[in-house]
Structure formats: C-alpha cells, structure tokens
C-alpha cells in the first residue's frame, strides 16, 4: 500500500462507495475504509433506493445489482387506535430513471463497493479509524491505532452518528430534535405468499408508510417495504419526541405490529434481524458547513436526508453528494489546493444539484409538520370518524356527507384546520 493517498474516504456506505467509484474512475489514488468486516455490515436503511441519481453513474445498475423489488405500489395509511384510512397508488410503467427499489444494505453495499474496486479504488473493511490527523489547521490523514495514513484530502462519509467529525469539531453534535431514530425488523415470508399477500407480480414491490397511531400519535411513522422474500418493517420517530414520551421505542414497535391493519400482513412471518439507525431529519436549517481545510463531508454525516412524510430520501441524496465530492476533488487535486476556499466549490456543486433543491423545498417541514401533533393524532382520527359515518349503515337514516364534513370540521376548529391545511401544504 502507498503510504500517501490522494483521497482517503471514511465509511463504506452509499456516499463513501460512490465517491470512491467516481474518484477512481477519474484516475485518483483513493482509499476507502469501512469499520464493518463487510461493506453494509453496520448499515441499516428503511430500505428504498430512488434510482435516478445512481442511474447517471451506473446506467442500468439494477440489472446486475442485488436489489430486492422494483416498487410498483405506494400505500399511505393513517392509523387510529383501531381503524385505518389507506391511499393506494399503482404506478404506470416507469420512466427509466424514475424507478425505485427496495434494498437490503448488507446485500447492496458490498456490490457497490465492488464497483468502486473494479474502477480502481482500494477498499479495506474491518478498519476502524480512531482519529483524523490535522496539521496547520488542515486535515491531512487518519490514525488507526498506532498507524498513520496520510492523504491530501479526507472525505468523511461515516453516517448519521458522525463521531469523527464531532471529535474534531468539524460539525456540532446534533440536537435530539433534529434526529430521528428508526427501528426495523426484517421478517421472512416465502416469495409466493408475499406476492399473494401484497397483490404483487414478478419483481414488483410495495412501499407502505403509516402515520398516526403508528407511534402513538407522535411525529413520525411506520414503514413496510416488500423485499424478495422478506419484509422490512419499522418505525421512525423523532428522538426528542420518543425520549420524552410515555412508551419505550421497542414497545411502540410492538404496538404498531399489533394494529389490526398490520397484524394480518405479518402473520406467520419469522424475524430474521432487528436493527436501528439514526436519521438526520433537521433539514437544511440543521446543516453544518460540509467542508473545511483538507476535508469534505458527504451523505448522512452531512445531514443530507429528507423525511417528507410520504417519501423518505437519504440514499439518493448520498449519491448526489458523492458526485459533488468527485467534481470538487478532481479539480482540487489538479490544483493541489485543499484550502477551505478551494473546497468551498463543494458547497457550490451541492447548491446547483437536485439535493439542494430538495432540501430547500422541505426547509420548513421539520418545524411545521413534524412539530405539530395534530397531523399525527387528531387528523387521522377525524378522517377515520368521517369515513366511519359514511360507511356505517344502521337503522338510523345516514346523515348527508356535507353535514358529516361540517360537523367534524367544526369540532376540529375551522380556523386551526384551515391554518394547518395551508401550513402543511406549504411545507410540502
């Protein structure tokens, strides 16, 4: 191994591997270090990868990558304690770059790392980086035990729980309300039964999100993704909300699984794995500058993640930030300039990308939607009550729809309802 690399990347997730791939393609001498024994061994994600960004780097990747199912069906459910209201959408034929796939990271990440290696990146797994080395105020290498590896520039892609960046004061420790905690079970279900249960054919998959009683009316929600012969089932909840709540997170997950909508879907499944992961959800207002002398920060470590309620995006944004890393560093390496001013082009590349547009679009979401319990408790209940009155037939004459709607709207408070509607619509 050379003792000095052009670029050392810390973290073998989507951001790290994609950065390594692009830099190696550009002829850069790049080393990627991952603390798990195998790529993906420490990585968890809810499990849905929007393909458009990776498609530009690895066209047609899903034909050879170990993806699980192509998402053809979107479901969104509002839950009350014992009822549910579900929106169910089936996609027409996808445009090629508009597809998305359910993925399991312990399968997907090794493949992505292999693409980086094939392009010429050196990737080492089972390596824990203990510290960064800084000289004259610039990051210039890393420390592993007694060993030191020098680099012209270091990319931190160590994920949402970004210890190294914090340890060296490159970022501030995230506030609990800017982070979500996700728990997830992987449940085995034979392929034919899974397809029958979710009305799927061939390689089609379902992505299903749940709000409302999923987490006791708190900000957050549940998710269920169909994989080839497993389900990814879990909850995401804001860290400050669950820490101050009444139930423990494991108990909330158990309650969720007992909901009458969920229980039949999970029947006769077998638990294969239980995992958890932090999710940056503070949005653009919670970001630290993702660059400085001798370093760039990418993916979850930089907080590039958006939870919009109906979609959760992190992996596609990680790919975009990796593209910005590569664009920045190929120029910086040519100029041999890794000063803060030189690496500030990273910010410019990010701001010119879809990533920034997405972060900007949802900038008020963390403060409005996620902090307003009415969206997660009262409105699911109201929707459910309206539908119950509409569908429940008994010996009394049914009230007309307009009076049902009027009654419930008045009960919720017309002005509050109107304001929340506008605010909710604006933040999306």
């Amino acid at each position, binding site marked *: 191994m050379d003792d000095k690399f052009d670029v050392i990347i810390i973290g073998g997730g989507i951001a790290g591997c994609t950065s390594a791939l692009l830099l190696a393609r550009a002829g850069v001498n790049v080393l990627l270090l991952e603390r798990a*024994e*195998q790529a993906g061994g*420490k*990585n968890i*994600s809810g499990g849905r990868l929007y393909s458009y960004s990776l498609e530009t780097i690895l066209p047609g990747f899903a034909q050879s990558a170990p993806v699980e199912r192509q998402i053809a069906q979107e479901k969104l459910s509002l839950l009350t304690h014992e009822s549910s209201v579900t929106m169910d959408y089936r996609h027409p034929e996808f445009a090629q770059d508009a597809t998305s796939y359910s993925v399991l990271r312990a399968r997907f990440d090794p493949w992505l790392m292999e693409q980086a290696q094939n392009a010429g990146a050196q990737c080492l797994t089972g390596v*824990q980086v203990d510290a960064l080395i800084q000289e004259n105020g610039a990051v210039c290498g890393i420390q592993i035990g007694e060993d030191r590896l020098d680099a012209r520039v270091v990319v931190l892609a160590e994920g949402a729980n970004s210890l190294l960046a914090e340890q060296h004061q490159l970022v501030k420790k995230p506030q609990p309300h800017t*982070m979500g905690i996700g728990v997830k079970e992987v449940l085995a279900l034979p392929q034919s039964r899974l397809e029958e249960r979710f009305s799927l054919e061939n390689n089609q998959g379902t992505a299903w999100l749940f709000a409302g009683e999923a987490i006791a009316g708190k900000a957050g929600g549940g998710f269920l993704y169909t994989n080839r012969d497993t389900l990814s089932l879990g909850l995401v909840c804001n860290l400050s909300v669950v820490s101050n709540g009444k139930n423990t997170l494991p108990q909330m997950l*158990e309650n969720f699984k007992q909901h009458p909508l969920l229980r039949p879907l999970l029947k006769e499944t077998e638990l294969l794995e*239980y995992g*958890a992961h932090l999710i940056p959800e503070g949005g653009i207002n919670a970001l630290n500058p993702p660059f400085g002398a001798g370093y760039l920060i990418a993916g979850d470590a930089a907080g590039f993640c958006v939870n919009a309620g109906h979609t959760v995006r992190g992996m596609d944004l990680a790919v975009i930030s990796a593209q910005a890393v590569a664009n920045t560093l190929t120029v910086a390496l040519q100029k041999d300039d890794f000063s803060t001013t030189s690496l500030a082009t990273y910010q410019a590349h990010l701001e010119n990308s879809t990533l920034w547009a997405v972060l900007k679009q949802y900038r008020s979401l963390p403060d409005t939607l996620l902090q307003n319990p009415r969206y997660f408790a009262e409105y699911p209940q109201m929707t459910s009550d309206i539908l119950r009155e509409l569908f429940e037939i008994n010996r009394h004459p049914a009230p007309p729809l307009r009076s049902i709607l009027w009654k419930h709207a008045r009960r919720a408070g017309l002005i509050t309802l109107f304001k929340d509607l506008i605010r909710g619509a604006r933040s999306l």
Partner: protein
Amino acid sequence: MKTEVKLSKNHYVIDENQPHIIPADHPDRQILRQLVNVCPAGLYQLNPDGSLSFDYHGCLECGSCRLLCDEKTLARWRYPAAGYGVTFRFG
C-alpha cells in the same frame, strides 16, 4: 416479542474486555429515563431503587443514547473495535 429475543436473532461478536459504552457513576435520573425510552435494544433499565442496569451486549450501535446526553451520563461512547459488535446480514 421481547426485545432480548429479537436481539438473539442478530449476529454479534462481543468484546468481553472492552465495553464500548460505559455509564457514568452518578447519572441524572431524568436523562436516564430518556435513554430507557429511546434505546431500541432496551439496554438501559431503571431498577426500583433508582439505580441503572446497563448491558452493552446487544447494542445496535445506533448512537441515539449518545445524542441524548453528555459524559455526565455516559462516561464513554465509542464504536466497538474493528471485528466486534453487531454485523447486519440484511441491513
């Protein structure tokens, strides 16, 4: 299903000599209650006498406990050494 049963499905290599998380001696009860609520592996438990039971075996390495407190509650929080800790086979 109990959390311990769920954790037993995971693949772990435990570093018996080196706990990667060590609670402080006299942590704040209010904060401990938050850790009890949040830890997805249920590793923090408050005893009736108010003391803390903590076991680093079964840790999912999510880092949520770390974000909720400082060294007054957790004297150490680091990742398990290379080769140790949880390995996700699905992820």
